């Protein structure tokens, strides 16, 4: 045994009396912004100005909303003076009780003024200057009419030459929750509505957040099930979160941060957080933190299962009645003996390895004694509320990781009961809001969300069996045009940025890229045509709730200010293009954006009679309803015959016959593996390889960071100052490399190099780095990313079943910069 001192030593010399003194930033400095209206400025700076802008001086206060992809949606009251937003206030309705809570925006929503009045705002339509490479940043301003004409002509030509499947709507989640402005799912965007009037587009399935857990759930549970809502944990004897971190990923003080904290505060249910990083959720509500190596959750579950089975602590009755594949007596017909989960665990399967806690300890880094203790504790508690975030599944073996955690929920017999859960991510109460704006895509072909770069590079080679193409055995064409609406997956959020950039620079492959956004994002830099969108403060929409435990709500986010610069709403843009294509009437049905919002409310009232009428809701801003705690699969638990799952067996499939078949038919790259059971799989760049890879011995993950929602808000100065981009490194790993807290360091592998400051901390497991995901890629002249994007380091290699992103499976090295 040895102790690794966690003290970073960087700040402890400072005298205690001088608390905060070292942070006494030398006051002054540059003003926040310059002067002049609509030039990317905030309206005024300084105390005198602030006093003048006090609420009593406001012309009006208008309800708006923060609509980024964190899982929450927070109403915001925007104070307006002389046509400018001068201050942002929180929801002031409701109270501090679960179900009626105020939906207090997080630090990001509170910074939205700097997002709206941002120097990076796109101000007028632009075209990439002829003769320059994508990403060079040379632009020519064009008129809206020129933009519409060029897009319409190119669309027409490409569809004629290559078919509608050559037009791709890339993943984008920069504006969510609304109805008319939503950028995801792609099928419900205004761009999809336009494309559907002219024959459709190539769609994708899955998303960068949850592709693998969705793929896993479809085989295990027959579809996306979710778990019990977090407020229901009050009924649990034990709460376990695998890589689930609501206090950072869903920071809303009316959403899951509020619900998890208040549930813990009021009911104090023992909580275990399993995560390589001591997250805010761990520091705040965990009674025990278990720090496993990234990519080892399935091995940890196997070790826990071994203890539970050995001691008879698993719920055999539940497994017999509701599950397929736990033991040899409950297997599908025709499967050879030795393929049950119990056989796998006890070493009676094909690999002959008993998955003892000692076996699991070597893989996970969690001591065997602690794994035994977890098995005893989990086995003794009932019900157990098990959830997982989306970290465990964002790995090269992510589908199996997700299914292993589902399986642990089944071993405890806690599925479908209050205080239990499915092992999926928490669910919440939701309102059945209508969406009359969405239409059907005539094209049925789709690719995995992570497969679009392959479809640009080698589309006609992609098949169902090798690449997960759906709706067709093989793609007929490569992607020739990309629409990127309110998204940064074109470059920043996709794997291996340097390779992606190289691919996009070849405009003989993908011939046209149209980006619709508010800001000059990394993806916007690689557009051919840039269309400047209005922010949500500059248009009206109805916001259809966020994840908030047992509370449902709806927001009319009104137009607060006139559109800035020469920006237009996406609805206006698509109308303009539709006009050029001769399909304006099909696209608009003669309605304005406000007409559509009214229609959403009117039609939603058919399902939710108590929902206020449009004018009343517009006045109220936000309408809340106290709903029920969600208990996932309660009907299945009550009567599995009457309420079967949509799996082939109608039961929970710990052994999936479908995956068994796929494992024998799909074509996989060397090293990839599909298993019918949720086995631990050692993968490329996994924890086992890390032990022997001398060049790149550190596992890199990318936690969600307070500064941003993915990449949204990434260019907001207040947030960059409050939460600077830093790489988390364990004290021991830093010490071995001579690195102290706040030193500039370089993280690198064969795919790329990133420079940023080090956060030397005991809060992350030895051998693991976390580069907070979503920072904006900013290569210097040498190609070194000074922005700190983790995707400079990650790969394109998709996961075996879902063909999803495996961006937490990455090895790299660290050194002083």
């Amino acid at each position, binding site marked *: *045994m040895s102790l*690794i001192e*966690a*003290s970073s030593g960087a*700040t*402890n010399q400072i005298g*205690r*009396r*001088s*608390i*905060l003194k*070292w*942070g*006494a*930033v*030398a*006051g*002054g*400095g*540059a*003003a*926040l912004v310059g002067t002049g209206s609509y030039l990317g400025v905030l309206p005024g700076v*300084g*105390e*005198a100005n*602030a*006093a003048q*802008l006090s609420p*009593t001086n406001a012309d009006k206060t208008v309800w708006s909303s923060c609509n980024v992809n964190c899982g929450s949606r927070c109403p915001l009251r925007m104070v307006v003076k002389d046509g400018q937003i001068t*201050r*942002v*206030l929180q929801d*002031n309705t409701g109270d501090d009780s679960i179900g009626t809570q105020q939906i*207090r*925006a*997080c630090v990001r929503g509170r*910074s939205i003024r700097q997002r709206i009045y941002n120097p990076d705002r796109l101000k007028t339509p632009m075209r990439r200057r002829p003769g320059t490479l994508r990403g060079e940043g040379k632009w020519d301003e064009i008129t809206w009419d020129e933009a519409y004409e060029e897009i319409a002509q190119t669309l027409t030509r490409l569809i004629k030459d290559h078919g509608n499947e050559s037009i791709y709507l890339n993943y984008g989640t920069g504006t969510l929750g609304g109805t008319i402005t939503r950028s995801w799912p792609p099928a419900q965007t205004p761009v999809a509505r336009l494309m559907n009037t002219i024959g459709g587009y190539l769609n994708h399935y899955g998303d960068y957040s949850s592709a693998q857990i969705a793929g896993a759930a479809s085989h295990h549970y027959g579809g996306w099930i979710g778990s019990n809502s977090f407020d229901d944990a009050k009924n649990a004897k034990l709460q376990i979160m695998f890589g689930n971190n609501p206090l*950072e990923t869903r920071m*809303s*003080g*009316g959403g899951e*941060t509020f619900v998890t*904290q208040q549930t813990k*505060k009021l009911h104090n249910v023992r909580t275990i957080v399993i995560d390589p990083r001591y997250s805010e959720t761990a*520091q*705040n509500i965990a009674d025990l933190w278990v720090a496993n190596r990234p990519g080892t959750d399935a091995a940890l579950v196997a070790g826990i299962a071994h203890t539970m089975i050995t001691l008879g602590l698993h719920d055999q009755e539940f497994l017999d009645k509701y599950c397929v594949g736990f033991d040899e007596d409950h297997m599908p017909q025709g499967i050879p003996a030795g393929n049950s989960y119990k056989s796998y665990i006890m070493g009676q399967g094909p690999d002959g390895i008993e998955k003892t806690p000692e076996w699991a*300890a070597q893989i996970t*880094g*969690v*001591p065997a004694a602690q794994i035994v203790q977890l098995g005893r504790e989990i086995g003794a508690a009932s019900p157990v509320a098990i959830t997982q975030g989306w970290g465990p599944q964002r790995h090269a073996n992510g589908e199996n990781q997700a299914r292993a955690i589902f399986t642990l929920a089944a071993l405890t017999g806690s599925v479908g009961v209050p205080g239990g859960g499915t092992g999926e991510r928490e669910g919440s109460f939701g309102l059945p809001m209508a969406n009359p704006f969405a239409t059907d895509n005539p094209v049925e072909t789709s690719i995995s969300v992570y497969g679009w770069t392959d479809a640009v590079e080698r589309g006609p080679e992609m098949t169902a069996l090798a690449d997960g193409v759906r709706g067709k055995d093989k793609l007929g064409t490569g992607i020739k045009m990309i629409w990127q609406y309110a998204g940064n997956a074109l470059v920043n959020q996709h794997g291996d940025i340097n390779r992606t950039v190289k691919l996009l620079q070849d405009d003989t492959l993908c011939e046209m890229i149209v980006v619709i956004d508010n800001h000059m994002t990394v993806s916007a830099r690689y557009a051919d045509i840039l269309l400047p969108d209005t922010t949500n403060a500059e248009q009206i929409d109805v916001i259809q709730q966020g994840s908030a435990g047992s509370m449902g709500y709806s927001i009319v986010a009104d137009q607060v200010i006139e559109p800035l610069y020469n920006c237009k709403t996406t609805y206006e843009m698509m109308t303009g293009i539709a006009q050029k294509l001769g399909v304006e009437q099909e696209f608009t049905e003669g309605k304005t954006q406000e007409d559509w919002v009214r229609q959403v409310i009117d039609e939603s009232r058919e399902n939710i009679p108590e929902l206020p009428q449009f004018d009343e809701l517009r006045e109220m801003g936000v309408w809340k309803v106290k709903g029920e705690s969600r208990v996932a699969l309660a009907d299945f638990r009550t009567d599995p015959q009457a309420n079967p799952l949509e799996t082939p067996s109608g039961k929970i499939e710990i052994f999936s016959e479908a995956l068994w078949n796929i494992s024998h038919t799909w074509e996989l790259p060397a090293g990839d593996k599909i298993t019918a059971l949720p086995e631990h799989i050692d993968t490329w760049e996994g924890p086992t390889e890390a032990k022997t890879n001398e060049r790149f011995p550190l596992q890199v993950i990318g936690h969600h960071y307070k500064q941003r929602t993915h990449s949204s808000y990434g260019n907001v100065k*207040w947030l960059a*100052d*409050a939460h*600077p981009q830093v790489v988390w490194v364990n004290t*021991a790993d830093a010490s071995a490399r001579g690195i102290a807290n706040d030193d500039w360091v370089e993280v690198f592998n064969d795919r790329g190099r990133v420079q940023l400051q080090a*956060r030397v*901390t*005991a*809060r992350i497991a*030895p051998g693991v780095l976390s580069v907070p995901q979503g920072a904006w890629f900013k290569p210097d002249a040498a190609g070194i990313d000074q922005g700190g994007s983790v995707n400079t380091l990650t790969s394109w290699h998709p996961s075996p079943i879902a063909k999803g992103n495996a961006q937490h499976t990455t090895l790299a090295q660290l050194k002083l910069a």
Partner: protein
Amino acid sequence: MTEQLGFLFDQSLCTGCKACSIACTDKHDLPEGVTWRRVAEYTGGTWQKDGDTFIPNVFTYYTSISCNQCVDPICVQVCPTTAMSEGEDGVVTIDQDKCVGCRYCEWACPYSAPQFNAETGHMSKCDMCADYRADGEDPACVAACPSRALDWGPIDELRAEHGDLAGVEPLPDPSITRPNLVIIPHRDAQPTGTGTGDIANPKEL
């Protein structure tokens, strides 16, 4: 004097998100580099290694601090122009007509609460959002906190309900200025002067 006001900070709920800090900046339109409410991360601990495995023994907690409207406001005492004064409710404010921006108060305050605003050439500090309070509203930071970790009120009432703890690491010894602050400590909070950790985010303060 009417009732002395103070802040309540429930450290057990704080996630270090800084919504309080940004709400303050937004409300007061503070220029870059002036942050009246700041959040320190205090962290430490060890990892016990056994072969290829590890057990962490790690702690982390946050402290959100603005001006504590102290009983012994050293900023008032050192101000050479009498620009700093205590109001009826004990809230310390700056008379901008008298302040010459000498920064003596900033130097003296162990919490670095008064801060120089280069835009105005004067010092600036938290007044617990006097205009909001006059309108019957909570200070911006209190109203903003997603975790409900902040509150304010007559200090006697806050202490009666939550005790009188005002010093945990990494805060200065409360006997220096007698802050009107009540802290509900995080489970791992260490008393002032006995800390075993470090401030993880010195540059953010």
